[in-house]
Structure formats: structure tokens, C-alpha cells
């Protein structure tokens, strides 16, 4: 139960950060991506602020074998820059620029009752499910 409460609180803190930073406003996201037009640099500061804190946390995490609560510490082990990584990022970036939503802000906007955000989340989950199905077929064909 202690863990569930801490996970809930981290989700809440992350959601509040998205709202305060302006990430939940797709037109602001698109304003940041519009470097050839009228450019709103705000989201570079979102990234900068997050990494300034995250850098120290991950430097500490790399030195440990268990987390502060004594449980497992799951750090990614893959270091290969491969085709799926790049193609996936291309598809994701195209979708991000098209609507101005990435997964976190879309969830926050869905919770605040916006119909278009709800539609986005439904199609996003469908896209994830489609990947699961194709991925499973590819694995079973081998």
C-alpha cells in the first residue's frame, strides 16, 4: 500500500508539472515546434529544468543496486541505436507535431474532460495495441 501511495503521488507531481509548464496546451507545444515562424522557446526550459534535477537523481541511481525502499532498481540496459528506435521516434515526432500532444499531457487533458484529448488517447492506445499485435506476429513467425 505504501508503494501504491508513492506511485500515485509521483503521478500527481508529474501531472502538476505538465500543467504548470504549459505542456498540456497543444497550441503552446506547437508554438515551441514552430521554429520557422513565431517561436515560443518555453518548452526548452521545461526540458532544461527537468534534466537539471534528473541528472543528479540518475547519477545517484547508477551507483546503487536497490532503490531507497529496498526494492529492485530497473535501469535500461539496451545501448544499441537501431532501426526500430529511429523509425519509432520518426513516427512519434510526426504525430506529436500534428496534434501537439504527447502521451502524458494527453492523459492530463483527458482527465480534465476534453473530448479531443479523449479521442487522441483512444487512438493512441489503438496504435499501441496495433504494435503489440504486429510485434507478436513477427515473433511467432520466427
Amino acid at each position, binding site marked *: 500500500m505504501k508503494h*501504491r501511495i508513492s506511485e500515485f503521488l509521483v503521478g500527481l507531481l508529474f501531472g502538476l508539472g505538465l500543467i504548470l509548464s504549459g505542456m498540456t496546451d497543444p497550441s503552446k507545444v506547437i508554438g515551441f515546434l514552430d521554429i520557422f515562424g513565431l517561436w515560443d522557446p*518555453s518548452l526548452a526550459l521545461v526540458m532544461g529544468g527537468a534534466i537539471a534535477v534528473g541528472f543528479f537523481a540518475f547519477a545517484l541511481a547508477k551507483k546503487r543496486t536497490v532503490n531507497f525502499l529496498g526494492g529492485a532498481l530497473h535501469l535500461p540496459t539496451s545501448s544499441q541505436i537501431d532501426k526500430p528506435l529511429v523509425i519509432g521516434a520518426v513516427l512519434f515526432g510526426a504525430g506529436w507535431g500534428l496534434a501537439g500532444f504527447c502521451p502524458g499531457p494527453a492523459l492530463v487533458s483527458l482527465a480534465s474532460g476534453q473530448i479531443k484529448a479523449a479521442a487522441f488517447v483512444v487512438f493512441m492506445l489503438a496504435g*499501441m495495441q496495433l504494435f503489440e499485435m504486429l510485434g507478436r506476429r513477427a515473433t511467432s513467425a520466427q
Partner: protein
Amino acid sequence: MTIDWIHFTPWLSLGGGILLGLASAAFILFNGRILGISGILAGLLSPRSGDVGWRIAFVLGIAAAPFVSALVLPADLIAASRIEAGYASIAIAGLLVGFGTRYGSGCTSGHGVCGLSRLSPRSLVATLTFMTLGFFMVYVIRHAI
């Protein structure tokens, strides 16, 4: 390039970014996990026993954020959400974001925040790639068609 000074919110965005960093820090140090929204969601679509509760707790926390922010943050600080895309674009964008984040193993949070924070070359390539595509799409939509 012209700076949009009217919409530029340096302090709010920096403050919000610091909260995102603190959340990512707490998640790896206390829960032992990378805070990546697309990965957390995808795990709920193909649930494995013992691997569901933490995902639901986290997603409920995110869902509670707009209600808590209405209580604790001054209303004039919060940007109104304006969605310019129509439903057809929303549908295509949703599919691309869902499929792309799974294929590329992460999104803005997992690669952009956590990956860059831990100096992962993989995440640097992913982040530069999705940002480039974001710039390109907005250029095409706003200036080329």
C-alpha cells in the same frame, strides 16, 4: 526565426520542468522505475500478473492532477488548453504517437527527460529524431501548405 515574447513563460515552464524532474527522480530512487508514460500505459494493455498495480496508481495520480491543480495553483497561472487540430488529425496523430512510442521504446518522458538525464546515447538519438520530426510537421502544416 522570431521569438514569440507574448506567449513565452520562462519561469512557469522552468518551474514545471523542475517538478517533472523531481517526479522522475522520486520514481527511480523510491520506486526503482523509469518514468516513461508510453511504457507505463502499454504495460496496462498487455497486463502481466504483479505488474499492474503500480501502473494504475501512477495513472490515477496523473488523472488527479487537473483537480489538484484547480485547488492549489492560481487560475491565471494555468494556460488554457487550445487544441487546433481537427478530429481527422487527432486520430492520425494518436495512432502515430501510440505506434511510434512503442516501436521506439519511449516518448518525451522516458527518452526526453529520463534518458537525457542519465546521458543515454539511445535516448539522445530518439529525442533529436522526434524533435526534428515535430519541427518538420509544424513547418509543413503552418508554412508549406
